[in-house]
């Protein structure tokens, strides 16, 4: 299949709650970039920025575009939550909490997880090799990131399915659902209840050199409150799980769409990091990241007032023709750079190195074992959430391994 633009240019309407929009939002974003780049979404009462320059500016200017009271597009959604998520704060509070977690999320610190990630990937692939059928998300992508996060926050194997299920409940959205539903709140509360018990259980122990240990030590030292520790555990269960899961599905799909490029990776696994960067640019799993306006600001002639919510449409910015040549073409050899799939600036994704590590190992093992996989398009299913973009099911067939 070619990397040609997907569909004709429709009128400028962006509806991040429309399930049809989730299947192929790119023509809508392109129209917005060309004709109404600072778009006001009337039903939700928030702005959507679609140009690379504007999104990048908002990421860099963390005093004009703040995170406090943001994160979710839905008005007052965060205020309803009793446990604060550190991504919903600004310096210096944000810096204080982030500094606790950062050292454990650097590439050198994460290297020791590569062996586990590889072994677990092989273990997840093994039962499917003889049948020649695998669902990249339901059989692989939805398990691996949660297993890795679970190691970092000490969630035992027996509890992982439940925690993942609650994280799914928290992010799921019905068609055109613009407020938190009972299922979302229940997911959040179940996670909160679980991590309340989890922290109580580990409070008296000598803490491990993992994220849970680092946060419990910080709590003892007065650097993090108990509510912040629980909030951050909820955040890790969602962020560490959903976005990497979706990235694996998106990459499996795009490599199948561009099978000649997949062949290059089969022949030279050293190209996989470049393929990951291009997938992050071309079809990343973070669709919209949210800020609030800290002080009145004018963008392209439009006044955004203090307190307004702003969605930074990362996947639109990453296809901006003013920034990227041939942006609608998937090309792993373009030397993809400057995409903002992990955000940018002080709030840039803490788990970026982990997501890249997991995705690299997954595709090294997948392409070694099923280099000829064919996706069954009729079986594709999407997650529906304005912030996260990706599939819940990516079924594939491939040549079965010899018995």
């Amino acid at each position, binding site marked *: 299949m070619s990397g040609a633009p997907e569909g004709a240019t429709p009128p400028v309407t962006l509806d991040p709650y429309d399930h049809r929009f989730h299947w192929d939002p790119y023509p809508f974003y392109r129209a917005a970039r060309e004709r109404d780049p600072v778009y006001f979404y009337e039903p939700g009462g928030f702005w959507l920025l679609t140009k690379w320059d504007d999104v990048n500016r908002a990421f860099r200017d*963390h005093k004009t575009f703040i995170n406090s009271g943001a994160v979710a597009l839905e008005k007052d959604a965060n205020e309803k939550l009793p446990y604060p998520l550190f991504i919903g704060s600004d310096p210096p509070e944000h810096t204080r909490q982030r500094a606790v977690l*950062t050292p454990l999320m*650097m590439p*050198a*610190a994460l290297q020791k997880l590569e062996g586990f990630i590889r072994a677990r990937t092989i273990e997840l692939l093994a039962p499917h090799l003889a049948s020649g059928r695998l669902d990249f998300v339901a059989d692989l992508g939805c398990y691996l990131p949660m297993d890795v996060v679970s190691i970092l926050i000490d969630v035992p194997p027996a509890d992982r399915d439940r925690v993942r299920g609650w994280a799914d409940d928290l992010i799921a959205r019905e068609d055109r659902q613009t407020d938190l539903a009972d299922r979302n709140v229940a997911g959040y509360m179940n996670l909160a209840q679980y991590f309340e018990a989890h922290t109580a259980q580990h409070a008296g122990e000598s803490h491990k050199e993992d994220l849970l240990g680092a946060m419990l030590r910080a709590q003892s030292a007065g650097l993090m409150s108990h509510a912040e520790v629980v909030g951050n555990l909820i955040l890790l269960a969602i962020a560490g799980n959903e976005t990497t899961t979706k990235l694996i599905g998106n990459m499996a799909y795009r490599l199948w769409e561009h099978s000649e490029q997949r062949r290059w990776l089969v022949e030279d696994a050293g190209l996989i990091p470049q393929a990951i960067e291009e997938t992050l640019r071309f079809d990343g799993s973070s669709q919209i990241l949210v800020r609030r306006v800290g002080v009145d600001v004018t963008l392209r002639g439009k006044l955004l007032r203090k307190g307004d919510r702003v969605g930074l449409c990362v996947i639109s910015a990453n296809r901006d023709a003013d920034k990227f040549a041939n942006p609608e073409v998937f090309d792993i050899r373009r030397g993809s750079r*400057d995409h903002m799939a992990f955000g940018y600036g002080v709030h*840039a994704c803490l788990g970026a*190195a982990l997501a890249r590590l997991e995705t690299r190992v997954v595709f090294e093992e997948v392409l070694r074992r099923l280099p000829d996989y064919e996706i069954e398009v009729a079986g594709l299913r999407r997650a529906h959430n304005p912030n996260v973009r990706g599939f819940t099911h990516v079924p594939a067939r491939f040549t079965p391994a010899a018995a």
Partner: protein
Amino acid sequence: MTIEERNKKLVQEFFGLLNRGDVARIVAAYAVDGQLQTMGRTLISGRFTRAQIEAAAGQIYQAFPQGLAFTIDAMTAEGERVAVEAHSQGRHASGVIYSNEYHFLFVFREGRLELLREYMDTERVTDILCGGQRPAAAAAT
């Protein structure tokens, strides 16, 4: 231990922090009014306060997903000043291998960095880190 020996040890520790990406301790190595000056007229050149260093320090991993490794080649110390020859190597997000050669000047005050000034091959910075882009003012002159 002389002042010079102590400061050379601080420099070695500082490069260790850089290579591990320990942002909190990198920032803490600076005096409250400490500054970083990146020489040249590139997009990343300028004089930066501790708050600006704190905001920017973690971003190196956006350009270098696996980090950028610095190696000290030689050091010369006199009082609170340490001159360092060093080189770096890392794989840029675009897949290009980036390397550069540096001359750093560390100026300490009571064990904290008052000034860190870095000189390097700015053409390589522009070509790889800045994707060929230059500041408008520099391009015009």
